[in-house]
Structures are given as C-alpha cells and as structure tokens.
C-alpha cells in the first residue's frame, strides 16, 4: 500500500535483509564459514524476516561449511528473533551445516533451549486427512448413515418416554412444562400476529390482481381464507417456531450438555428424555395448533383489510364469503399439520441439543442445524401432507 519507509523492506539483497532498524548480514569468511550478523532492534511489531529467505541466500553460493551468529550489535529482541534463530538452525540442520549460536543474551539462549529441547509430541500432531477422495466420500456417507441411525434411535427413545408419560410414570417438573408452554405459546403471539397478518395481506394482493380482471374480487376472501387455513397458517407458525423455539431448545440443551447438566440428570437416575425432551415436545404439540388457529384468524383479518380498504368490499360480505369457503375438514387438516410440525420442531431442536459437542462453537452449530433441519422437515412434511390430502380427497 503506501510504501514509504518500508519500500526497501521487500527487496532481497544478496547478502542482507534490512527492515527498519533490524538487520541481518551474511559475512562470508574464508574456508566456507559464514557469520550471520544480527543487529538493531528486533520487535514483532516491525515484522520478521523469514529464515528461509536468509537460508536461500546462505545456500545460494557454495554451501558454507560452518555458520555462526554474531549479535554484538543487537539492541533489543523479542520472540521474532527466537523464531528466526530456531528457523535458521532447522535450515542448517536439514543441510547438515554445523550451526553455532555463539554468545547470545542469556534470556535468549534459555528461551531457544526451551523451544528446542521439548521433543515434538507425536500425539499432538493431528493426522491430516490424506485419504483418497473415494475413501473420504465413503467416510462421509458412513457418517450420514450413523447420523440417520442415531436420529431414529432418538425418535425411539422419545416414543418410550411418551409411553411412560401416558402411563403417568414419567419424571418431569410440571412447572417446567408450564414455563415452556408460556414461552412457546403466549410469548410467541406478537411475532405470529405480525407475520400472519402480513401473509394475509400478501395473499389478498396476489389474488386481487388476477381476480379483479374479471370482476371476481370477492373471491379474494375465499382465496385468503382457504390459503391460510389449509396451508399458510400452519406453515408460517411452524417456520416462526422453528426459528424461535427450535433454536432455543437446541441452544438450551446443547449448553446443558456442555456444562454436564445432562450428565448430572442421568447419574441421578432421572431420564433426560423425560425430564427435558418430554415437556418441550408436549408444550409444542399443545401450543402449535392454538397458534395455528390464531394465525389463521389474523391472516384472514389481513386479507379483510385489503378487501375492505383496497378492493372496496364491505367487511360483512368479505366475512360471509370467508366463512362460506372454509370447511371444517380444511381447518382440522391445518391444525393436525401444525401439531405434526410441532413434533418435528421439538425433535430437531432436542436432538441437535443432545448431539451437541463440548464447546461453545458446537452449541452455535447445533442451533443452526436445529433450525435448518426442522425447516427442511416441515417443508417435506408439508409436501407429503399435500399428496396425502389429495389422495384422501380433502
């Protein structure tokens, strides 16, 4: 960038590297011996020369027989110099050139010795994945299979916990359940209202553009009514709850895993499935249909606003048309769907929380995975429902 005083820094003179006040000179003596003269102020802030550039200069000519270091003019130093000297030593050792550090400041000598005497821990060198592509592909596939098996196991454990719940034998705190119900029920009303209202408005506008062309604006009411009740009410609440509650479940349980709170439950003989998953699952199964019903209503209200204000329909006619269009079966279908979405959100959130690794990073990852997987499952389930309802003729 603005070069200024550092402009000469990147030049590669044959036998010297200069940057700021720090300087490395190679002085070739007779008999193939080279003295590395180090002088000036060595500080990390000023950057550091790569040992390899000096190494290259060292070995550019005839290979030196002996390398030594001269630090008489050294003014100040920090770990940049240590790193440089250790690197230089490595280069010389690799080329079997005798390397002599000479008389360094006492502290410097000790630190270099520390850096060099500790044997490299073989276990510490993580194995870099050098497997061929096919092997890695296979391993990735096996991981996917493992994950799928684990998820199915998780569903099984949840089912067992439910069986205990039905028999009245499950261990959970009623106060927890009520708290979660409040959290994923009434506390979600605000955002569900806003989103549902806007969806109603959008549906109404979308329909109005087409329907007005042949004077059938009144059918906007049916369109919004059926659209909200059959699909959008359940879908939008599910997506809101996946982002809101599913993420919260994963983060809560993930953190509890990291802090060993889940282990503490297990070793106390309290099943985390019953104590943690069950209340969350029940809360969502109970609240999702209620939220969905509410969302249907608010969405229709949004549509009505467009109908009355923009299309000039009377509220009365709009309302009648809506009531006329909505069937009980469609309404029930939407509510059933929302309960199923609730199960999916709770499953994804709790599963990701339990599968969370042991770090704060893993909690973040679990939260993301919970939201993504629950939304994917919701959309897939929605598609399956559409096919199913079509076959059933609903």
């Amino acid at each position, binding site marked *: 960038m603005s070069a200024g005083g550092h402009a000469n820094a990147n030049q590669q003179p044959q036998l010297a590297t200069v940057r700021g006040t720090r300087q490395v000179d190679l002085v070739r003596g007779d008999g193939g011996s080279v003295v590395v003269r180090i002088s000036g102020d060595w500080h990390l802030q000023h950057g550091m020369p790569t040992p390899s550039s000096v190494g290259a200069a060292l070995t550019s000519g005839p290979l030196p027989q002996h390398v030594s270091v001269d630090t008489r003019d050294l003014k100040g130093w920090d770990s940049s110099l240590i790193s440089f000297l250790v690197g230089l030593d490595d280069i010389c050792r690799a080329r079997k050139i005798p390397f002599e550090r000479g008389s360094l400041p006492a502290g410097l000598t000790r630190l270099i010795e520390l850096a060099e005497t500790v044997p490299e821990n073989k276990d510490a060198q993580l194995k870099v994945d050098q497997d061929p592509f096919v092997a890695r592909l296979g391993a990735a596939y096996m991981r996917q299979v493992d994950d799928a098996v684990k998820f199915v196991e998780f569903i099984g454990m949840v089912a067992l916990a439910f069986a205990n719940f039905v028999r009245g034998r499950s261990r959970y705190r009623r106060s927890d359940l009520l708290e979660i119900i409040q959290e994923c029920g009434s506390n979600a009303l605000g955002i569900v209202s806003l989103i549902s209202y806007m969806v109603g408005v959008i549906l109404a506008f979308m329909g109005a553009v087409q329907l007005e062309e042949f004077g059938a604006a009144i059918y906007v009411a049916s369109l919004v009514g059926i659209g909200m009740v059959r699909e959008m009410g359940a879908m939008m609440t599910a997506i809101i709850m996946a982002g809101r509650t599913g993420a919260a479940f994963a983060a809560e349980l993930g953190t509890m895993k990291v*802090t060993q709170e889940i282990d503490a439950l297990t070793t106390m003989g309290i099943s985390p499935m019953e104590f943690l998953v069950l209340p969350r699952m029940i809360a969502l199964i109970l609240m999702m249909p209620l939220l969905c019903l509410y969302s249907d209503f608010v969405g229709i209200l949004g549509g009505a606003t467009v109908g009355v204000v923009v299309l000039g329909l009377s509220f009365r006619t709009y309302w009648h048309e809506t009531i006329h269009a909505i069937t009980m079966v469609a309404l029930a279908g939407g509510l059933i769907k929302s309960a199923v979405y609730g199960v999916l959100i709770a499953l994804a959130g709790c599963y990701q929380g339990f599968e969370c690794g042991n770090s704060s990073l893993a909690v973040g990852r679990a939260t993301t995975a919970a939201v993504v997987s629950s939304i994917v499952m919701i959309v897939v389930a929605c598609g399956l429902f559409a096919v199913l309802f079509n076959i059933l003729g609903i």
Partner: protein
Amino acid sequence: MRETGGGGGTAGNGALVSRAAPDADRAAHIEVRNLTMAYGDFVVMRDLNFKVRHREIFVIMGASGSGKSTLLRYLLGLLEPTIGEIFYDGVNFTQAAPEEREAMLRRFGVLYQSGALWSSMTLAENIGLPLGQFTNLSAAEISEVAALKLALVGLKGFEDYYPSQISGGMQKRAGLARAIALDPAILFFDEPSAGLDPVSSRLLDELILALRDSLGATVVVVSHELPSIFAIADNSVYLDAVTHTIIANGNPHELLAHSTEPRVREFLTRGRPGENSEKANG
C-alpha cells in the same frame, strides 16, 4: 522443606490407616474388571483392574489427558465399556437392566468438575429435585432438607440464588450439597480442587473427609492435585498415559515411599524425584 511435608503427610496417613485397618478385608464396594476404555479405535486405557473397599477414599490419579475423567464416566455408566465389567457390591453394573441400573445410580452422588448445577433452578430446587423425584417428602420437608444440605456445605441462606449468581467455589459446594441430597452410598468427585484457591481446596478436602466419616460413604475422587491426594486418599490407582494402563495401585504415601515406577514417582514428587526418573523419561 520436603522433609516436613512428607513427615506431616505420613502422620496423617498413619491415622487413616489405623482407622481403616480393623476391617481391611472388607468386601469390595466397587470392582473394575478388565476394563478397556476406547473412543472408536483409539484405546485410552486397557486392562484396568482395581477394587474400592467400603468407606474408602479412593483416588484416581494420572497426568492430564490420561483418561481419569473418562474412567469416571465409565464408572457412572455415561460411557459403555468396549471390554470389561464394573461391579457395585458384587452386582454387575455394566450388564444391569435399565431399571436395575437406575436404582443403582440412585445410590450415587456425583460432583462434576464445574458443579453442573441445573442453571434454570435455584440452589434449593437443585437439591430438592432428586428429593422430590425419589422420596415421598412434602414440599415443605424438601425445602427443609435442602436448606440443611446447603448448611452442611456452608451455604446457609443461599437457597434462592441461581447458580449463575454465586462464585465458582460456591457452585462447587452447592454441587456437593446436591450430590449428598439422597445420602448416597458412593460419592464421586471429578477434580474437586480444580479452579479453587488453596484454602477453599483444603476446606473441600476436609469436607470430603467429614462426609465419608459421617455418611459412611465410599468416595471416589479423580484428581491430580498432590496436596489433596496426600490429604485424603486411602488408596489410589495411577493411570499411565504411556503404557495406557494402571501402573500403580496403593496408598499414595506408600507409593511415594516404595514405588519403583519412575513415572509414578515423578508424578508424586512434581517431577523432582531424587533419582533417575529424568533419564527414564528422556
């Protein structure tokens, strides 16, 4: 300096030995047979065999990363052994049916490294939870017992605090109060002194000794804190990260005096042994 430290320790040890001596041949409370601990293909420890007698304070020692806490997770059934079995009072814990195992777990009290208090509950609720789940006590009785347990660990008056509102040392003590909520037969401690100042750490050691004496519980401690090990341990095993198995089993004072294993001596002397362990390590 070393002389006085060793002398004091030996005296304390003498007292412990004499107390434990009359029933030295008591049946094993915990027995580990041929346990192999592994993560996938990576074997952490193999062929672990040891016994813990009733009312004994048993320390699992070892360098950092040798698998001490992992061994504890196996003992608690949080990990399933690939090979080997664990017995409690002669009952096979590893192969126990889920209900049987749950009943056995109820006799355990565990203090986790960070306390692992349930952060959404107050201290009283933390201690009250197992009481509410496994006893027929009324709510009033539960809060009374919870207050008592908190008082035992020096946290009287902190009933309505949440774990995040108290210090790390207090969280640990509260975790201990929860661990002893059901008057367990076996208490497990995962690095009890980790993160504590020297005084709190010594107080916790004394609390462990007092609990063993008063509750009559068997105590299993994972630790690498030498002062704590010498102060409380009746018996111990040393997990060796090099050979991946137990290389010493016995009272730490006796191990210090007689063990010929260089790495055990090195561990027990903070790496400043009188003799050849340096060379053995190099």
